[in-house]
Structure formats: C-alpha cells, structure tokens
C-alpha cells in the first residue's frame, strides 16, 4: 500500500507557523522518549 502525500500535507509540512509548533512538540516527544528510557 502506498499512501500518497497530498498537496495539503505538503503545505502542512512546510508551513512555518505549524512547523514551529511541531518543532516544540518534537522536542517534547524526544524528551518524553528520553524520560521513558531506563537511564539508570
């Protein structure tokens, strides 16, 4: 199955405001992953 990346999705991927928001979310996601890691 190939899912096409639609025009709308491409715009979303390069929309600076949305992507700024995603940048913050991604940072939090990575910190969440680090937190889940055992890190003992």
């Amino acid at each position: 199955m190939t899912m096409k990346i639609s025009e709308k999705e491409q715009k979303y991927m390069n929309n600076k405001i949305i992507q700024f928001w995603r940048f913050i979310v991604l940072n939090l996601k990575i910190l969440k992953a680090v937190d889940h890691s055992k890190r003992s």
Partner: protein
Amino acid sequence: MAKVVVIGAGFAGQTAALYLGSALGKQHDITVINKYDVFGYTPSWVWVGVGQMNPEKTTFKLKPVYDKFHINFLQGTATAIYTDDQYVLVERSDGGGEEKAAYDYLLIATGAKLNFAGTPGLGPRDGYTSSICSLPHAIDTRDRLFETIARMEKGERQKIVVGTGHPDATCQGAAFEYITNIHKLLEKRGLRDKADLLWLSNERALGDFGVRGLHIKKKGQVMTSDNFIRSVFDLYDIDWQVQKGVREVEPGKIYWEDYEGAEGETDFDFTMLIPQFLGPGFTYYDKDGNDITSKMANKGGFVLVDAIYGLDWDTLAETPEAWPAVYQNRTYKNIFAAGIAFAPPGSISRPHVNPNGLSITAAPPRTGMISGIIGRITALNIIDLIKRGRMTHAERMSEMAAACIASMGDSLWDGSAATIVIYPVVPDPRTYPNEQGRDMFVTDMEMGLAGAWMKRMIHSTFMHKLQGRIGWKFVPE
C-alpha cells in the same frame, strides 16, 4: 590511582571520556587513544557529501577538551590488547613508533571498521563506489557527485544509486538521508529531470532500517515505516529495490543476489553504497602470549560482552534480556565495549538466507544516541567500580529509546526531515504485547520542516556537549 584507557573518541568514547574526566580526571589517570586529533560529527557528513556543509563544521580538536577535563590524549591506532598484562599496544600517529598504554579499566569504543574488501569493487580507494562513512570519503563523494552534476548540466542523463553495498550492511538511515538530500539538491539546481534515482538495499522491506521497521498510530490508524518511506520515495520520484545483497561492483555495474537467490545487475553513473561494518579487529593476547582473539571478539571482530549469544533468532526476538546491560566482557571484567564496537547477540530485523546460502540481513544499527547512552553507562560503571567497587548502572537496547532525524534537505527554509522516535530500540514483546513489541505511545515518526530545524539544532547541541562546554551534562545523549 586507577588508570582508565578509552580507545576511540567518537559518540561512545567521547561521551564516556567526558564523564570519566569530570568524575575522576583530577585524582586518576584517564587516557583517550584516538586515530585522529579531532572528533568527527558523523551525522552531518551526509550534508558534506552533497556540498551543503563545510567539512570543518563537523569536527573539533580533542586536545583542548581533554586539557579541560584532565584527560591524557594519545593520538594513534590501537592494534593489540594484552588482557592479563593490562596494556594496549598503540601505533603512534606522530611516527614515534609503538607505545604501551597501561590500564586498570579499558573501554573499547572504536566504532565501525569499514569493510570495503568484503565486497569486491566496493569503496572509493580500491573500488568504484563512493562512501560518506568517513570525512575524507564524504569530501571525495561530494566532488564525485558534483562531477556527475556537471555532466547533467551538459544535458547527459545520469543514474544515481544509493543504498547498501554488502548483504549484511547496516546504517540504511544514513543512505536514506543521502538519497533524499541528492534529490533536494538536484531539484534546487533544476536538474532533477536529468537524473534517475534508485534506492538499493538489503532491507526486508522499505523503512526496516535494521530495527524491524516501525508501526505508529496516527489519528487512530496504524502506519508502518514501509508505507511512510514508500510515500516519500513516491513524492520524490525515487525508484527502489529491497531484499538485494550486493556481491560485487564493476565500473558502472552493481551485481547482487536477491531473497529468492536470483542474480541481477544494476547500472550506475554515480553510486554511494554503505559497506559492511566490522568490529575493531584487535588481536588479544593472554599472559603467555597466546592469541585469545576468538574468546574476546566474535567473527566480525566485535567485542563480546554480557549478552546471551548463540540464540536462534526467534528465541532472541522473545528474549529482550539477551541484549547486554553493562557492556562488560565476561572473562575480563575490567574490559568494556561501547557503541558500534560491542557484539550484539543477533540482528533486530528477521534474518534471511537465500537458497544459495547467502545471508541478506540488515545488521542492527547502533546510532549516535545509542552509542552515547552506552558510553555514559560504561563510564558511570567504571567510576562506580573505582569509587565503590560495584556497578550501579545498566541499560539494554531493549530498554533504550532512540531518536533519529533523517534529513531530507538541509535548508532551514524549505528543507525537511523525518523525525523518528523509537522505544524500545529492540522490541520487547513481553512488556509491549502488540504487533511490533514497542510502546505505541512513545514510538513516533513524522516528516516536515520542523525536522530540518531539529537536525540543525542537534548538530549544534551535540557539538557543544561533546566539547564539554557549559551545561554539557544536561544535553541528554
């Protein structure tokens, strides 16, 4: 006073050296042995290879960092380890001959030995392919790519093949970044219609990346990394072939075997193929001068540690505790191995042997983050052993998260990257009894400009951290 020797100043060794230096540097004797006098930030060599980053931006001098942390630096190549007499034999880089580096604790963090010889015709020196696995290679590859681009500018159509150059290669992520960055570069130069781009890999499926692929939940639907990478290749008009084990390369031709045992060939004008990675390849000697290498390292030269070796793959897949926790050799408890140098108990992806007996299996990656984490753990345990006489740190790859940002164009304005968060790296079907054995809440993947910003940010923060600059400990590995 204890003597600690670290061989290798990459992600694992440099992280370990900073922890060791900051905890022990003033009272104990810490020495780092490294081939070169600089640290090399590997992830950004993808950008060097497409001429989008100056090579100097990916390195820094080691000695000033070590001076700050009271660490001795010996520039040279370690060749042999005398496990009972406790010293490393080093060929000095300054032409000063051989030197013995004595240790009470030894950490081997030598990364990958690039086995171009494992595939006839592979590699930039004795073969016909390019590589981005070392900085000189990335620079040479950039130049060859620009020669290819010059031919396109003259109107010639060029075929560019990127992927894996050995049936058991790993590091598909770096190759994926490279092909998507080439796409973006050609697009920017208005030459994309002059090139056919092909992804050629030993993975079972697209997006396997040597970690058995990923499943993530998006808006209630499950998406796989296979679908995700397909849609990227579809968008970028990149052809792909998987389940191919490259056997040989000749000028302009790559010969491979596939999962079914069929033989085939692929033409190219320019190709970047990742070689097989091997372990450090030291010779180990006991007190009587006997060669005990086969007891210390596996066939690939990777250092044997506290993993459970010899399990068949199905059993291994059900046994997350088979993955090492403290990365300590079982015979010589004062020897540790971190990063790519340690011997994993097997592959994460399901192995495949074709009817001709050829193993075509994506080997398990030990990425920068994973190597850094293991570097920290081994350093903290060596500190523990010196200060308290027992270890208190442990983390298996089946308990470890990793984040990987696959650049797909470096521009901060219209670049892109796939941000992949994976937990745990090695699936643990007991703790996570779902299809992929991973935490679906943490494991994630998305693509967009934010990823390109992340990739840049991580370059800067890691170059900052690994130079031991202010707040370095707060940047998680």
